């Protein structure tokens, strides 16, 4: 056993300590101290994660057993960690990006009161702790603890400015939608525990266990787990919470709703690839839902005017891409995209935070424009993010998106076409956002124009680091056709995720696909530039209106689920409660009352009646004694 693994429990423990210190001392500690503690613990975790990563890279993995968490009958659920290639990669993403966002937050949140500043960092640390628990967990239960923990932190952070009722509603929405998924996760967990008496990854994914499960079991478990993933990773039909979650502070959106938490579902499915590779039906479901989400969210993003909403739908769309990859069996491609997406989406969110900061809280891009002149660094880094997400080689997004598109092509060329369309939309709406925001004339008020300023270094530094990562992050997964042995990530993950075997695609075809996607993306970018370079706000009409209103999905849910539920609740309240429950409860009272009134007559106080009753009772007792006691 290696030393690094022996202290691996410090990775989640450090953020937990940070949470306790910041949470308890939020009224005593000064802002700078809170920032140092909050960021420091994550930096410590990051350092440990690097050590773990290096250890794992040299070929060591570990299963760490700490104590028995639940032990009932045959079912034994220890509190255990499992550290392997997949975990160490996620550890790096979470702690690395998390650290940058902590640093960014120290500047971004500086105007909050000390108390709330401490609360904010406490939540962030708790989130990091939960997320680390989620990826470190050696069984589904520990994973579920983290899973719930991130859901809770998400709720707390979305509703961070709890004085605004709308924000609270958004927080509730996120929490409740997550709960729907969590319920499915729990049922899958119970199913697994019932069938296998174990929820440990090592046991469940072993050949012996998988052989014990019928194909129905596997399909149900995987489908339920996937429903859990749709909740956490914002897929159809549970995706509407993510755009609303933008109510939280912008760094939170970057950390939770772009880089880490929403990828939990992808992590979980990638982790369970042994199960999923046996469930063809589930894979198809995942594939189509992923694709549908990607298209739907991308079309919505075309017409959004809130800078964060665009990014939110973009996130949903990108998550759809990842699920598409999972569904086609390209787990490595999905994880790869998680990583690159974490870089460029965190970058863009932080960039948008910088813009919002400069605009004094304004989020509507129609009131921006021409910001590139004042916010040079932000413009530059944001542009890098856009290029990366659009998929221009050699930026990171190109490689990961290309891997996904390739896997779709291997599965079915029709899938490829649809996915490519979504990717083109991505490029279009991202550059629309970029051009509307940063070029043209300023459309805001005079005070805002006066107020415009570049963000402080604490905010710019993370932006620059993330921009660098967005540029070079894709180089770990260069396809074989370009450079033999370039897919270092796939090789690294191969012990956890078997190499994806799709239809063999000729090198020339692959080059052609890359060429097509890159060419079309460039066309899209140019188109966006022409349309939005000198943007003036106009009323949207026709189909654009539908897109602006997000396909009316929220309204649909309201009509199909919320209204009938309200109606049903009203029915229960007015009819069922009044008539049946109250009737029952009051009926008992009335019956006792009536019975009492009748029984009262027996208590006439007249001795004769009492004696009569006594004799009758004697008769009954005698009769029972002598005639009914036979045998």
């Amino acid at each position, binding site marked *: 056993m290696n030393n690094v693994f022996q202290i691996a429990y410090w990775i989640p423990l450090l953020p937990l300590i940070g949470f306790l210190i910041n949470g308890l001392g939020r009224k005593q500690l000064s802002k700078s101290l809170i920032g140092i503690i909050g960021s420091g613990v994550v930096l410590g975790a990051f350092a440990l994660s690097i050590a773990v990563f290096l250890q794992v890279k040299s070929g060591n993995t570990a299963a760490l057993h700490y104590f028995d968490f639940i032990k009932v009958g045959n079912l034994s659920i220890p509190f255990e960690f499992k550290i392997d290639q997949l975990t160490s990669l996620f550890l790096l993403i979470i702690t690395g990006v998390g650290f940058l966002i902590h640093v960014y937050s120290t500047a971004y949140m500086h105007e909050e009161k000390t108390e709330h500043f401490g609360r904010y960092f406490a939540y962030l640390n708790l989130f990091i702790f939960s997320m680390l628990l989620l990826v470190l967990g050696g069984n589904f239960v520990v994973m579920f603890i983290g899973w719930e923990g991130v859901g809770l932190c998400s709720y707390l952070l979305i509703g961070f400015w709890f004085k605004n009722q709308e924000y609270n509603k958004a927080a509730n929405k996120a929490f409740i939608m997550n709960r729907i998924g969590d319920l499915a996760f729990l049922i899958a967990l119970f199913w697994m525990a019932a069938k296998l008496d174990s929820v440990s990854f090592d046991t469940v994914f072993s050949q012996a266990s998988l052989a014990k499960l019928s194909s129905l079991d596997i399909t149900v478990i995987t489908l339920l787990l996937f429903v859990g993933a749709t909740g956490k990773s914002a897929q159809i039909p549970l995706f509407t919470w993510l755009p609303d979650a933008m109510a939280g502070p912008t760094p939170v959106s970057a950390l939770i709703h772009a880089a880490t938490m929403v990828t939990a579902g992808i992590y979980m499915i990638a982790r369970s690839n042994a199960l999923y590779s046996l469930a063809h039906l589930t894979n198809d479901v995942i594939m189509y839902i992923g694709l549908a989400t990607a298209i739907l969210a991308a079309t919505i993003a075309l017409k959004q005017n809130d800078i964060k909403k665009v990014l939110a739908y973009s996130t949903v769309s990108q998550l759809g891409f990842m699920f598409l990859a999972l569904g086609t069996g390209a787990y490595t491609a999905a994880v790869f995209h998680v990583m690159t997406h974490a870089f460029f989406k965190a970058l863009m969110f932080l960039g948008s935070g910088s813009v919002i900061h400069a605009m004094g809280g304004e989020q509507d891009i129609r009131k921006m424009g021409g910001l590139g002149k004042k916010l040079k660094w932000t413009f530059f880094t944001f542009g890098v993010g856009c290029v990366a997400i659009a998929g221009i080689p050699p930026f990171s997004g190109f490689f990961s998106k290309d891997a996904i598109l390739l896997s779709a092509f291997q599965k079915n060329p029709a899938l490829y076409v649809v996915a490519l369309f979504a990717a083109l939309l991505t490029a279009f709406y991202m550059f629309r956002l970029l051009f509307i925001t940063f070029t043209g004339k300023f459309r805001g008020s005079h005070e805002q124009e006066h107020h415009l300023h570049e963000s402080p270094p604490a905010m710019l530094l993370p932006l620059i680091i993330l921009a660098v990562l967005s540029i070079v992050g894709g180089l770990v997964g260069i396809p074989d056709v370009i450079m033999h042995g370039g897919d270092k990530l796939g090789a690294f993950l191969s012990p956890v995720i078997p190499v994806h075997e799709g239809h063999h695609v000729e090198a020339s075809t692959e080059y052609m696909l890359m060429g097509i996607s890159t060419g079309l993306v460039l066309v899209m970018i140019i188109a966006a530039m022409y349309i939005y370079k000198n943007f003036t706000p106009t009323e949207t009409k026709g189909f654009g209106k539908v897109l602006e209103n997000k396909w009316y999905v929220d309204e649909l849910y309201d009509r199909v689920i919320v209204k009938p539920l309200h109606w049903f609740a009203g029915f229960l309240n007015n009819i069922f409660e009044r008539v049946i429950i109250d009737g029952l409860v009051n009926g008992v009272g009335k019956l006792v009352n009536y019975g009492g009134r009748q029984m009262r007559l027996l208590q006439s106080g007249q001795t*004769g*009646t009492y004696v*009569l009753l006594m*004799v*009758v009772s*004697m*008769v009954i007792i*005698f*009769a029972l*004694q*002598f*005639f009914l006691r036979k045998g």
Partner: protein
Amino acid sequence: MEIIEILFGILAFLAIFSALMVVVSKNPVHSVLWLIVTFFAISGHYILLNAQFLAIVNIIVYAGAIMVLFLFVIMLINLNRETAPQKNRWLKMAGGVAGGCLLLVLVAAFKEVGMAEKQKAVVNVGDIGLIKSLGKELFTKYLVPFEISSVLFLSAMVGAVVIGKKE
């Protein structure tokens, strides 16, 4: 049919008849008198069973002392007919039915248990009922209860005086 059986039959009939008359008589004084007849019949049974001491005590204590006491009380409160008119006839009926049921159940139970038909209460034989043997038992084996019964009498006397005393 032996003379004893005839005597038993007569006494039993007398006892039951006079007991019934106790219950149905309108006049309380008549009830008292019929009750005395019942006691005499029961004393007759005692004599048949050769329990002479109890027969005598029964007549002296019950028919003599207690019934005279009843008569005194009736005279004292000057009550020779029921004051209030009969109400609550169904309660009366219910009482009769309940008593009948009790009789039925007891007899049926008795039949059910099937007390050995051959068991007999000897008549005329055995001297345990004589004053001599009972006295011996009473003043040896049952001396303490006998003495305690005197305390009971004392307390009953005190109680009666306290209750009967005018405020």
